[in-house]
């Protein structure tokens, strides 16, 4: 089976996703071996998928989760809204006062949470060996290509990582995150 450049470009995205037949895959690879233009297109596409799929590209703004939670609380209990406003102001003043103490602490990591508060993560085998890196918020399988600061990564079980507040990598742990 022979393919021309147009066919390679048309199928390049499916090829990167592994969504082509074995015969077409072989034909594309044979073509790319002798065609620098198609080789450049395929390697560029693979890089695009890899780099945009990195967890650092999907950061949420600082405090987003807390603000979302607070808004939901206000919606559930409108009567508390005024009270909540005072509470937020009070909490903010405590936070400012406590900043110096927090700054002194060397341990800055995700907040510890109960595993049971994250129902979508429960299907991850608790004993699975995973890696987390210094300053990261996500845990990965050791083979994952998106681990940030791999040199600082430490191993632990998935159960420990979840309890420590880390969330699973949507790429390498994807198969455990399908929620029905």
């Amino acid at each position, binding site marked *: 089976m022979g393919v021309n450049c*147009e066919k390679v*470009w*048309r199928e*390049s*995205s*499916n090829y*990167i996703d592994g*969504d082509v037949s074995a015969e077409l895959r072989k034909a594309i*690879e044979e073509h*790319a071996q002798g065609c*620098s*233009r198609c*080789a*450049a*297109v*395929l*390697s*560029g*596409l693979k*890089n*695009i*998928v*890899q*780099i*945009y*799929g*990195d967890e*650092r*590209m*999907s950061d*949420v*703004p600082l405090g*987003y*989760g807390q*603000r*979302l*939670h607070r*808004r939901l609380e206000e*919606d*559930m209990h409108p009567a508390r809204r005024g009270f909540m406003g005072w509470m937020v102001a009070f909490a903010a003043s405590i936070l400012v006062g406590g900043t110096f103490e927090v700054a002194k602490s060397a341990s800055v990591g995700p907040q510890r949470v109960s595993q049971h*508060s*994250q*129902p*979508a*993560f*429960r*299907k991850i*085998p608790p004993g699975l060996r995973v890696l987390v890196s210094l300053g990261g918020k996500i845990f990965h399988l050791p083979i994952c*290509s*998106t*681990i*940030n600061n*791999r040199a600082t990564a430490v191993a632990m079980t998935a159960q420990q990582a979840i309890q420590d507040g880390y*969330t699973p990598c949507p790429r390498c742990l*994807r*198969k*455990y995150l*399908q*929620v*029905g």
Partner: protein
Amino acid sequence: MRTALQHDLAESSNEGALLKRIKDGERELFYKLVQPYEQRVYAAALSILRNEAEAEDAAQEAVLKAFKHIGQFRAEAKFSTWLLQITINEARMRRRKQLAHAMEPIADQPTEDGEYVPRDFADWREIPSETLERREIRDALMKALATLGEKYREVFVLRDMQRLSIEETAKILDISTASVKTRLLRARLMLRDLLSPGFGGGWTTKLSFAKGNKPWE
């Protein structure tokens, strides 16, 4: 040992049980149900609105709407899909308002007819992971993504950044799987062309001297 299927069944029954308790009146549990998806909700809104503050507002509104209408959610659908559909609709509505306010045409997207032909054939150096530590590079990547038409951005964000399947992406956007594949191909090729000048040289020369990253090697 439990199989993956058993895990799936256990998980859906956990979420199903949570949903039942919420519908039965334990409304405080809703945040627990939403929490695993809050990052996806934000990313979906951002892909349409291209503004962080607007996206966060739309994400909050979408979650509130999901909470208000949780009684209408049918168990045969996936909760995450339903939630993302609400988010996409909320963000699109806001986008339409923005465009109407700015008196810009809504139909500003190129058609899917005709093939997209790559323009740049320079070979890329392998992109080292450390490159993303640089804020200006992440900004440049987001800026390039923001220049794509909305329908390409939506598909690319759900599929390549949120790692949803082709089928899930199609369902959330209410388009066919063939359209998802076509738009994804275009989005990836356009981004590659847009970013080639940077990744073909300037951004990576100081960081890596590796050869191009060949998918078949």
